[in-house]
């Protein structure tokens, strides 16, 4: 791990064309770098001088038509205010006083400087993989899981019960489907044809209490029975058109 402090501002300013805002981590960082240029302890720094340095720097950058990010401009505006407040005769009623604002800025710079130095000292420590090395292929410690199976007597008996139940001999009962056989339909139709004298619809010949599958079966077998009786010349059939009701009556002897 190495710490990259970036180019120093002095070097930057010698070649102003290389003045580059990417070198700083924000306006506070730029201020800190400028403050370092005063070569005094941060506690003794002249905030007024620092403010002027910052404003000069930003003006220089703008003169060079460098794009200055908004937060640097916000800081510049605030520092310009601070500068005028510091230069004007003190107004004891003004809150917060410019001295207090300057103090706050100084405290922030001290804290940032402290962390920057801490980061450098941290990275200068003996780091694993750079200064000290570990075993590259340790055997490793392993946890081996030993399976322990769990079941209760109830589980066992219930399982056996279900095996028994599943494999018990089963009596197969074939249920009869409700159908009207052709024979039954023939007999039924023969019986009724003598009773009805005029043309009657085929459905009138079906027993009224047949419904559902039984009725469908009765229609089918009665239709076939009607065709058979017509073939035998015992009834006459009449239909107005396709899918129209089918009428039948006894053939005239």
């Amino acid at each position, binding site marked *: 791990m190495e710490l990259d402090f970036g180019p120093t501002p002095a070097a930057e300013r010698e070649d102003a064309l290389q003045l580059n805002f990417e070198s700083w981590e924000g306006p506070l960082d730029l201020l800190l770098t400028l403050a370092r240029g005063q070569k005094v302890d941060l506690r003794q720094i002249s905030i007024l001088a620092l403010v002027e340095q910052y404003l000069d720097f930003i003006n220089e950058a703008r003169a060079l038509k460098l794009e200055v990010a908004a937060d640097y401009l916000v800081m510049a505006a605030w520092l310009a205010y601070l500068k005028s407040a510091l230069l004007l005769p003190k107004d004891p009623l003004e809150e917060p006083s410019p001295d207090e604002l300057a103090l706050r800025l100084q405290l922030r710079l001290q804290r940032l400087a402290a962390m920057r130095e801490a980061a450098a000292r941290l990275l200068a420590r003996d780091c694993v993989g750079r200064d000290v*090395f*570990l*075993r*590259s*292929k340790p*055997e*490793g*410690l*392993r*946890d*081996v*899981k*030993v*399976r*322990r*199976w*769990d*079941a*209760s*007597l109830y*589980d*066992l*008996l*219930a*399982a*056996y*019960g*279900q*095996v*028994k*139940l*599943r*494999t018990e001999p089963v009596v197969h009962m074939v249920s009869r489907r409700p159908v009207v056989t052709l024979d039954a339909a023939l007999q039924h139709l023969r019986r009724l044809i003598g009773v009805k004298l005029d043309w009657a619809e085929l459905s009138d010949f079906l027993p009224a209490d047949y419904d559902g599958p039984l009725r469908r079966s009765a229609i089918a077998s009665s239709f076939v029975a009607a065709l058979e009786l017509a073939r035998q010349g015992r009834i006459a059939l009449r239909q107005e058109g396709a899918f129209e009701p089918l009428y039948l009556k006894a053939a005239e002897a």
Partner: protein
Amino acid sequence: MNPIDDRERAIEAMLFASDAPLDARQVAGRLGDEMTPGEVRAIIQTIAARHAGSGIELVERGGNWHFQTPADLAHLLRRERDDPRKLSRAASEVLAIVAYHEPVSRAEIEAIRGVQTSKGTLDVLMEAEWIAPAGRREVPGRPLIYKTTDAFLQHFGLTSRKDLPGIDDLRAAGLLDPVDLAFEEAIGELDLVKDGEEA
């Protein structure tokens, strides 16, 4: 203890951090060839002797040296932990059939269950030490037959196999109640899925 020689320290660190065993020539090369391989070998022997009898060993394999954990301490590197698991529905059935019908062969178990039984199910029950092979049936193919073990009786709190309730007891207890069947079958399918995942 005398302070350790700098070259000895360097060689020790090198062998420790290396990702492959090193021979004396390689070590000498990495040290900038200030020493001959023979000198390096002598120092390696000193290091090995220093660690002898400790929890770290420097060993030679075909001229290459590496650090390792002594073989007699290998058991410390693995720790066994209990991993309790619920017996699957299929395994419970097989176990029950063995208990009620022992000794039985796998084919007989399948005939009773009415479904194929995977080898894994019997393995699980043998791993649990609840069933054990009990010889072979003297029929064509001489199939292995299984019986339950003492550990089985102990786990299920039975004094002997005679303690197992009869079919009539099971029916009286509602364990032959078909109402549960659909539910149990649904559970059984889930178990099968799990078995499949484990396989």
